């Protein structure tokens, strides 16, 4: 065998290995996408089902073999859903509670986070440790007494009762405090040298710098108002103060037996859409806010 032949054989061998590796790689990639694709379908299917059901006629919905795409679009379901569940009122109530509680909550959170991150005072660390410790306690434990407290305060069936008890979130204070701490202390000292008051510094420097976190908190808080169920159910019996999730659940369970599913799905779609819109436009902040909780400690 000449030297040249050896060389060629060697090269062929190398190519073989690499082509084998290539096929393995391709197979692995195909399997990855297959798995992820199937999982994605599983995740998406309920949403798809919700959407198509919401525009089916009741007859089509009740077919023996369900159709995977509506034969005829019945958008009237939405009108019916809107009226049946009094969704307009529920939307307004929920928005009001959401916006007011978010605003107050932000003010309290920002002030507290600022105190914990930038000011020195006696008992600061002890206080913060106590706050963190309360995060371990399940909220239900508070609910029992809070129900008692608000009913004795005469707050039942008011907006106050839906807003005030949840204004302080230790978790958001913690989140924002961590963010504030990352801002170098020299900026604070520099501002002090320039004669900036604490509040102006907070407004002009810290809030702009921590804006992503503040936006995350705002969105999560608003979403919380949208999704809250247990507390409003306890403290409001008057429909005038009902929030969206309660209204949704109540309006369609009262009807015994015959549930008009297309209309129900239309209502569910209406309730879910704002959440999806917020998610689509502010995905970055939501995912950051949620994942922040993962970098704890």
């Amino acid at each position, binding site marked *: 065998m000449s030297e040249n032949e050896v060389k060629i054989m060697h090269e062929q061998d190398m190519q073989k290995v690499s082509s084998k590796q290539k096929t393995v790689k391709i197979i692995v990639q195909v399997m990855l996408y297959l798995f992820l694709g199937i999982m994605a379908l599983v995740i998406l299917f309920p949403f798809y089902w919700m959407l198509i059901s919401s525009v089916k006629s009741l007859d089509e919905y009740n077919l023996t073999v369900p159709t995977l795409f509506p034969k005829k679009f019945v958008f009237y379901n939405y009108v019916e859903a809107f009226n049946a569940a009094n969704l307009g009122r529920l939307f307004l109530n929920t928005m009001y509670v959401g916006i007011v509680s978010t605003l107050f909550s932000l003010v309290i959170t920002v002030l507290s986070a600022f105190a914990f991150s930038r000011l020195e005072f006696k008992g600061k660390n002890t206080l913060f440790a106590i706050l963190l410790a309360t995060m371990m306690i399940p909220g239900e434990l508070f609910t029992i*007494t809070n129900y008692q407290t608000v009913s004795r305060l005469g707050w039942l069936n008011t907006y106050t009762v839906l807003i005030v008890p949840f204004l302080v979130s230790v978790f958001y204070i913690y989140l924002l405090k961590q963010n504030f701490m990352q801002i170098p202390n020299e900026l604070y000292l520099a501002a002090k040298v320039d004669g900036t008051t604490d509040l102006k510094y907070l407004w002009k420097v810290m809030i702009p710098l921590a804006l992503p976190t503040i936006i995350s908190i705002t969105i999560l808080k608003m979403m919380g108002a949208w999704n809250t169920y247990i507390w409003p159910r306890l403290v409001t019996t008057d429909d005038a103060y009902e929030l969206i999730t309660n209204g949704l659940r109540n309006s369609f369970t009262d009807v015994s037996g015959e549930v008009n599913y297309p209309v129900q799905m239309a209502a569910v779609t209406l309730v879910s859409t704002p959440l999806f819109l917020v998610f689509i436009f502010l995905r970055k902040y939501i995912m950051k806010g949620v*994942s922040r909780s993962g970098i704890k400690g």
Partner: protein
Amino acid sequence: MSKVLNALRSAFVDGVWKTFCVKWIWQGFCVNLVYKKFDKWKGWLYLAPAIVLLLVFTLWPIVNTLRMAFLNGYSSLGELGGETFEFGIQNFQKVITYAKFTSALKNTLLLCVITVPISTILALLIAVCLNAIKPLQKLLQTIFFLPYVTNSIAIGMVFAAMFNIVGNNIGAEAELIKTAGIINNILGVFGVKPVNWINAGSSYTANMTVMVIYIVWNALPFKILILLGGLQSVNKQYYEAAKIDGTPRWRVFTKITVPLLSPMIAYVVITGFIGGFKEYSSIVGIFGDTMGPVGDPRRLNTMVGYIYDALSQDYQGRASAAALMLFAIIFVVTMINLYVSKKKTHY
């Protein structure tokens, strides 16, 4: 008690705010005079709103829950009516002997033990796969996060619709199959006979299966997000080093990925358990307030559900006892998890 509360309330309305206002003005005045003194108080001033609210809605409830739990047969209405209660542990004794409570406990534990491992493993698999692809990664990541931004009651209703047997389900078997619902239809493609998932006369196993599927579906996004975040922060050099050594994929996964990811895994497992023990609204979403299929309410009740039931019947003593037990369980499980993960966590 109510007197105290009323006094507190009037003190709060009249006294505290005035005191604070006065203090505020006084301290504002003092800025120029005694700069140092103000500095010491400033922190508390900024925290004042948070502290007031926390005292009323967090700290007082902790104290009060302990009090109520250890007053035999305590009820808030009774107390208002002048009834007095003896100190004791009767509430706890009663609660644990109640079949309602034990079945709620069983449901909660079962759901935790089944859903947490399934969702964690599934999330880990999806996260690892997501991390290994390039095109479509962002899109898929977004899709997998979607369930997080849903209303668990609303989507619960969608799941209920999917598992539901549509139409009148009282009648011959043939009629039943005729309107079997989409899930049964899909299963039919694979030759599985229709199952009565959530309707009247459905089996406990079927109910639980639906709950497990829904809870896992709901729990995936958070776990995937955290685990993927963890994966993406792992230094690529470890993988390159492993590649040079010719380490097989499976070994890379078990010997490098999982250990490096162990803090994140521990985190999602702990939060998964905590969330699992507080399971409530997903069951309301599917079964409604009755917490069970038609004809068998409360069959799928959970710890939290039990607490609310006791509360709505004005048995605050029992509710408090149950809440404390829930807290104790969560605490113990968290500690065990932390202990185990500290031993297993590799850095």
